[in-house]
């Protein structure tokens, strides 16, 4: 029993890690009032750049490579999300249109570059340094709990949980967070108080680029092991769902992401687990989306999100 639970928990964590990072990214963006349907594209770019970084530097950095690739993926995510920031903040583009451009651009661009780098192949080579299994010192020796949660588990997932806690503090307990939220709720009022509305929106979008890029990098380095056009297939949208499910609150968002990660992982490993293997995998695959719809209808209804979310703000002269 403990063994089965430990498999379920560790694989759920593996699958939730990218969702947590990306959903938190989306939370920052939407808290600043910029809808980001481009998370999927940002993850694609992060996944691609982490793959390349990993392949070319593994011999130099050894076992540190995955972590550095993570940062690199995040960095390129920031650069890529600039498209969305410039278009929505300065050039008054519709947020959905701009996000869709990000999603259309990412696969084209990354596969183009993949073909440039890997002799015309549509997918990258397999990376050598991956996030392996990680056991916490001391904690892993706690009976039962240690076995389930802290032995042979996913390190990025625990980092993601930590980031969620930090994100909670940033958004709700710091001056920056207050400003970010006020810009998402009522940019005019924030502007009259001397808050740099455009600057805050940039911050929100670029943080979503950083975390989305990291999310994509985690997918490659702890799940797929290589980059191809199907490496990122829906995770960005599931993350968006987790963000809504978690009502734009980092802690709840993390909870939702873990829940969706569990559902995704059960769809993959379910046939080895008693009871779950009686279930058609299709139900586990659609569960996150159906649940999000239910939550939207039952609990959220009208505009529980940031009030000025998705609106273009034009500073008056």
């Amino acid at each position, binding site marked *: 029993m403990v063994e089965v639970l430990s498999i379920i928990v560790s694989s759920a964590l593996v699958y939730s890690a990218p969702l947590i990072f990306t959903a938190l990214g989306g939370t920052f963006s939407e808290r600043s009032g910029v809808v980001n349907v481009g998370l999927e594209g940002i993850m694609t770019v992060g996944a691609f750049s982490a793959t390349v970084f990993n392949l070319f530097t593994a011999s130099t950095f050894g076992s540190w490579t995955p972590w550095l690739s993570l940062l690199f993926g995040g960095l390129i995510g920031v650069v890529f999300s600039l498209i969305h920031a410039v278009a929505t903040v300065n050039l008054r583009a519709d947020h959905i*249109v701009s996000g869709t451009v990000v999603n259309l651009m990412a696969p*084209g661009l990354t596969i183009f570059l993949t073909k440039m780098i890997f002799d015309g192949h549509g997918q990258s080579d397999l990376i050598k340094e991956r996030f392996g299994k990680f056991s916490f010192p001391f904690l892993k020796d706690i009976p039962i709990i240690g076995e389930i949660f802290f032995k042979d588990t996913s390190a990025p997932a625990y980092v993601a949980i930590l980031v969620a806690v930090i994100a909670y503090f940033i958004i709700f307990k710091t001056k920056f967070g207050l400003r970010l939220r006020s810009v998402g709720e009522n940019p005019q009022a924030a502007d009259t108080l001397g808050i740099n509305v455009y600057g805050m929106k940039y911050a929100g979008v670029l943080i979503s680029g950083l975390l989305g890029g990291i999310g994509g990098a985690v997918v490659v380095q702890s799940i797929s092991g290589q980059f191809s056009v199907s490496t990122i297939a829906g995770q960005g949208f599931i993350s968006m769902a987790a963000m809504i499910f978690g009502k734009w609150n980092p802690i709840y968002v993390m909870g939702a992401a873990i829940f969706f990660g569990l559902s995704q992982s059960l769809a993959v490993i379910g046939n080895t687990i008693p009871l779950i293997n009686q279930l058609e995998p299709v139900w586990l695959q659609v569960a996150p989306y159906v649940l999000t719809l239910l939550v939207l209808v039952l609990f959220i209804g009208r505009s529980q999100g940031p009030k000025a979310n998705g609106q273009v703000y034009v500073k008056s002269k």
Partner: protein
Amino acid sequence: MSKRSTFIKSLAVPVISVLAGLLLGAMIMLAFGYDPVEGYNAMLIGAFGRSYNVGEVFRLATPLILTGLGFSVASRAGLFNIGLSGQALCGWIASIWLAMTFPDVPKILLVPMCIIAGAVAGAFWAGIAGFLRAQFGTSEVIVTIMMNYIILYISNYLVRSVLTKNADATTQISANASLRANFLYELSGHSRLNMGIFLALAMLVVVWVLMKRTTTGFEIRSVGINPFASEYAGMSAKKNIVLAMLISGALAGMAGVVEGLGTFQNLYILNSSLEIGFDGMAVSLLGGGNPIGILLSAVLFGILKIGGLKMPSVGIPKEIVEIVIAAIIFFIGISYAIRFLLDKIAVSKKAPKKGEV
């Protein structure tokens, strides 16, 4: 004069966007050491080289006309239907299922039945989003994105476990259900061009008449412009929101039927949402939501995508086309900036004129 100048200006944005997109593609080709002239030349050969290629261009444009129209109807009502992919897939599934269930019904009955079934299925899938939006104020963007994935997994499940026994694709449909026609096949050098093109062209006219010449269309448009004023004038915003989504979904569903009964003749396991959904959205944005614009943009997309398949023959990855398309939509998206620049240029050329938008 002023009407003419706004017409020119409304044309300027898409034309500039397409040119800028192509220019960006050329710059990327240059940056990676390719010859853009050679690249675009290969594209033109790929799109117009033989009658087969031209046939494929129009084959690809067909569903895009339908999804593009679908997007434009919803957006006229102030809705952003990002779920065209899922609605098209619904139509695809319904038509294939019906065609497989009644393979021996005469063509004259079976084809219209399948088209109607596809349209109804697409309308149903979009209608859910419309209903939730009207009744609970739930964002149709989020709902339709979620619904895209729900139907994607359901479709794969149906292919694998219901329509076949663990196969990756259903069997080919009978000739009775096929949209392919011999004369088009011969005319277009054995391409997959099919009767769907006539359906799409007919829908261009139908949607234009519906939106511009009927009360229904007027109500949908006025709800899109101002739901509160429309309510005050006695129209039901809720009813029109649902109606617009139903029409939008029906058109997307027909696009799926064209793919199912025309292009592929079966249903198979999909790895991601249908491209025709997002491309249809792009086609509609580029075409400014009007029928002629949608027709022209759909054909342009056909040229880019089918022509792009030829680009690897000169060593250039075909993905450059996707980058160009994304860039075109980016420039459409920032049309405010383009208009602003155009106005600046116009102002600096002649005396400033106020009051024109």
